[in-house]
Every structure is written in C-alpha cells, then in structure tokens.
C-alpha cells in the first residue's frame, strides 16, 4: 500500500481546505452584502403601498446601498410599515428629516427603498426612528396622466394645423412679412427706443447723483435734509406758529361769544339786528325820510322856476355847456 502515504493526506487536506475557503468566501461576501455581520441601525417608514417590495430588498441612500429591508408589516388598511436595517457607519449622514420612497432599480429591476436627504438641517437618525415617506410613483397613474397629455396634444396639434393653414392662405400676413418699408420703420422704431432708453438711462443717472448728493448734504434738498441749525429754526418757527394759532383760537372764541351775544339780542347791535319792533320803526322812519326828500325835491323844482333865482340857474347851465364844448374840442385834437 505505497499509495496511502502522508503526502496524499496533505494533498487531500489542501484540496478540501481550498474548496471550503472558496465556499466561506462566497458566503461571507453575500452575507456582507445582506448586512448579516456588523453593527446595524434599524429605522422604519410607513407607506400606503410598497409596490411589491420584499424582505431583503436593498435600501439606498443617495444611490449607495446602505442596508436591507428587514420586515414589512401591515399596520392598517392604508398603512404598511417597512422596517429597514442600515449599516451603522451611515448613521451620521442620514438625518431625521430624510424622506423614504419606493422605486425600482432601472425600468424592470428589483424594487428598492430610496432615502433622500432634505436641504434643511436636522440631527442624525437614531435607532427606531420613523422617516417620512413619499408615496411611490405608480406606472398606472403615470400612464393616466400621459393619456390626458396625449389627448391635449392632439387638440393642440389640430389647432396648430388650422392656424398654420390660415396663415398660409392669408395674403396680408405674407405682404406684411415681405414689405421692406415695415422692416425699415421697425428698425427706426427700435433705434428710437434705443435712443429713448439711453436718455432715460442718463436721466436715471442724474437722479441717482442727486439722491447721492442729497444723502451727502449737498444741494437744496440735501441742505434741507442734513442741516441741523435749519431744523432748529424750523422748530422755532413751528413753535411760533403754534403760539399764533393759539392766539387766533382765543380770538375766534371771543368773536364767537360776541356773535352769540348779538344773536341773543344783547347790546345795541344785537337790539338793532334782533328787535323786530325796532326794525319796523326803522322802516317807518325810512319811509318818512323818503317822503321828506320827495317834498324837498318838489321845493327845489319850485325854487328853480322862481324868478329870484332863475338867473343863477341859467348861468350855471351855460357854464356847464362851455365846459362840455371844451372837452369835445380836446378830444378831437
């Protein structure tokens, strides 16, 4: 039995150990992928539907595989709780406000849970935290929307067709497009607009300069805004004005009391204004005065015709006529 030596056993041992090492290596690599070894962190998220997510599916954070789905429990008729175990070393990077969503790996691949970071700051997750969930995009809903979009597109393209055919048939449009005058005037208009804007620009520049000067205390407005002595004077003026208005106030109140007295019929003026008997008497007196003057007029007429005074009156008339003649002569000159 020369074949059954120790050398054979060594070869056998090497053979078996190589095979076992390969197996263990393979299983270890797979186990590391599925988070069997090493420290893990458990978090959860509630979804309405999980789109065929299975226990053991990958969890991705920013596209990197960070863990696997541990349990999927039905909590209520609208809630499915997904518990995930993540590698401990990603804990500082996943914040409490991160959002979990369910997606697929490519178009046809496995279902995965994606954890997306939010821009707002938040503390990192701890064991047992619940992440907010974004409901998965369902292909059905997408297709529904697409169907509606398609229908709209059909309408839009039909309208477009109509519009283009109308445009093609209208000669006015083509004339407008072909007219060189229109383009020239358009160009001029644009030039004018350009000039106007340049001027506007300059004006706004001036305004800006003025505002800057005013801020620095230059110019009238600046003086107004910045000079403190002026403000003092202004204050004084205002004080005086207010004193004046107070005086005016007292004056008006005095006047007021006077008018009140007058209205009440106190004092001579009040009597004059208010007493009706007095008024009627005054009226009577006025009537008497009128009669008196009428009679005086008659007396004077009689005097003119009196022979004693006739000569005087005639001379008076002549003098008057001469003065009028002289005036007329001066005017003709």
């Amino acid at each position, binding site marked *: 039995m020369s*074949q*059954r030596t120790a050398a*054979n*056993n060594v*070869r*056998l041992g090497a*053979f*078996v150990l*190589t*095979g*076992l090492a*390969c*197996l263990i290596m*393979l*299983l270890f*690599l*797979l*186990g590391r*992928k*599925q988070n069997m070894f090493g420290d893990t962190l458990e978090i959860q998220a509630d979804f309405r539907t999980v789109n065929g997510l299975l226990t*053991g599916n990958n969890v991705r954070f920013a596209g990197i595989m960070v863990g696997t789905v541990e349990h999927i429990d039905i909590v209520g008729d609208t809630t499915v709780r997904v518990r995930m175990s993540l590698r401990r070393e990603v804990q500082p990077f996943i914040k409490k406000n991160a959002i979990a969503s369910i997606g697929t790996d490519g178009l046809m691949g496995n279902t995965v849970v994606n954890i997306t970071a939010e821009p707002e700051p938040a503390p990192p997750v701890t064991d047992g935290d619940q992440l907010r969930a974004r409901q998965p995009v369902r292909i059905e809903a997408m297709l529904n929307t697409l169907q509606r979009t398609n229908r709209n597109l059909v309408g839009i393209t039909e309208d477009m067709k109509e519009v283009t055919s109308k445009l093609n048939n209208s000669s006015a449009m083509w004339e407008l497009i072909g007219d060189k005058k229109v383009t020239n005037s358009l160009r001029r208009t644009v030039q004018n607009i350009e000039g106007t804007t340049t001027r506007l620009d300059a004006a706004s520049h001036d305004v800006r300069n003025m505002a800057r000067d005013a801020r620095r205390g230059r110019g009238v407005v600046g003086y107004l805004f910045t000079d403190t002595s002026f403000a003092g004077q202004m204050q004084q003026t205002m004080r005086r004005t207010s004193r004046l208005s107070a005086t005016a106030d007292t004056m008006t109140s005095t006047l007021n009391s006077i008018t009140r007295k007058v209205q009440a019929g106190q004092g001579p003026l009040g009597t004059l204004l208010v007493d009706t008997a007095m008024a009627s008497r005054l009226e009577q007196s006025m009537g008497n005065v009128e009669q008196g003057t009428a009679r005086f007029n008659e007396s004077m007429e009689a005097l003119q015709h009196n022979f004693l005074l006739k000569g005087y009156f005639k001379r008076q008339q002549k003098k008057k006529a001469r003065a009028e003649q002289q005036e007329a002569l001066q005017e003709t000159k």
Partner: protein
Amino acid sequence: MQASEFLAEAGAISRFAGRFFSEGFRPRYEVQEFLYQCYVVGYKSLPLVGVTGFIMGMVLTLQARPTMAKFGAEAWIPAMVALSIIREMGPIITALICAGKIGSSIGAELGSMNVTEQIDAMEVSGTNPFKYLVVTRVLATTLMIPVLVILADVIGLYASYLGVNMKGVTSLSLFVNNIMNRLEFSDVVPAFIKTFFFGFAIGIIGCYKGYHSQKGTEGVGQSANSAVVVSSLVIFVIDLLAVQITGLLGLN
C-alpha cells in the same frame, strides 16, 4: 416483467442505502481507508473537473456575448454566467463528470473484487467488507463532490472573467462586484446542498452495482457501465426534485 424488474432494482438499491445508514455510523470506523478514498475521489478528480469547469465558464461567456450585445447588456454577462454556473452548470456537469469517472471506477473495482471473491475472503478474514468498501466510498463521494463543485464554480468564474476580457476590458473587482450584486443566498445555498445528494447517489449506485455484479468478467464491465448510466440518470432526477423543492420553499 420490465416494470417488476425496475421496481426490484429500486427496492434493492433502497435497502442497500438503508444498510449504509445502519452500518455506516457504528464503530469501528475505517478512517485510513476513508481518507484514501477521499484522496482518490476528490484530489485525483480535480484536474478533470477543473478543466471542465474552466471550459464551461469560458464557453458560456463567449456564447452569451453576441446575444447579450444585441440587447446592449454586456454588463450583465458576468452576473448571468455566474448565476448559470453556480445554480446549475457547475453542480450538474461536475456531478456527471464524477459519475463517469468515479462511479465507473467504483463499480469496476467492487465488481472485480466480487468476481474474484475478494469480498467473501474479506468477510472470512474478519473485516466487515461493507464497512471497509462501501461506507468509506459513499462517504467520500458524498463529502468530496460538493468540494469539487465549489472549485469547479470558482475555476469556471475565473474562466468567465478571462472570457469577458477577451472581447473587452473588465477589472477583477468590477467583475466580482457585478456578480455579487446579483447573487443571493438563495442562489448559492440550495445549489450547494443538492451536490451532497449528487455525491451520495454516485457513491451508493456505484457501490451497489459493483457489490452485486454478476459473476464473470462480463459482469464487471456491465456493473461499471450501468453504474455510470443509472447514477447519471439519478443525478438528473435529483436535480429536478431540488428545483421543485427550492421552488416550494420560495427560494427560486
């Protein structure tokens, strides 16, 4: 008659297997002979299995390439080849090769011992021939075929890596990552477990055929031949069963 003959054969093999279990785990153990059989079955088969695995991996890769390139899925070649090697091709081809090599040698060895009445002589001299001849060989095949399958898988995957690099450039780490991303425990573990059954079938059928060979030199050839044929067939049946059972367990 055919059916009853087949049933009688099946019953006899079952009883033979039952005897293996009842006698195999009782002392005294033939450790030296077991180790020698392991050496013969495992180590001596490695070159053959290695070459087969290497060619299998490379050919699968090169064959898959044109079709995958048509779909623009060349990046999937490593994962696809790895899945087919680890799940099916590695175990089944290694088992068939071993059925041809080991099953025939066991059948011929035990058959010629039976023909030359060495087995009877062993019994007379006080050694339990079943323990010494059958139990050691069956245990050796049962434990060595899985090791051979794993080595064949590894060699096949390395050949696939070479095959991918023949038409493109892939680093080894990318290749491994591509495979590991797709591979699950459910791909590896059932495929590994079924290889024990393959090994057991090869050993037990080879031993049965040799142990119960007809007298005469003709009988030796016949037992060697039928050991290979029956064990190959049984391997396929076990493979079918394995796929059904893993499917029932939800591991497919």
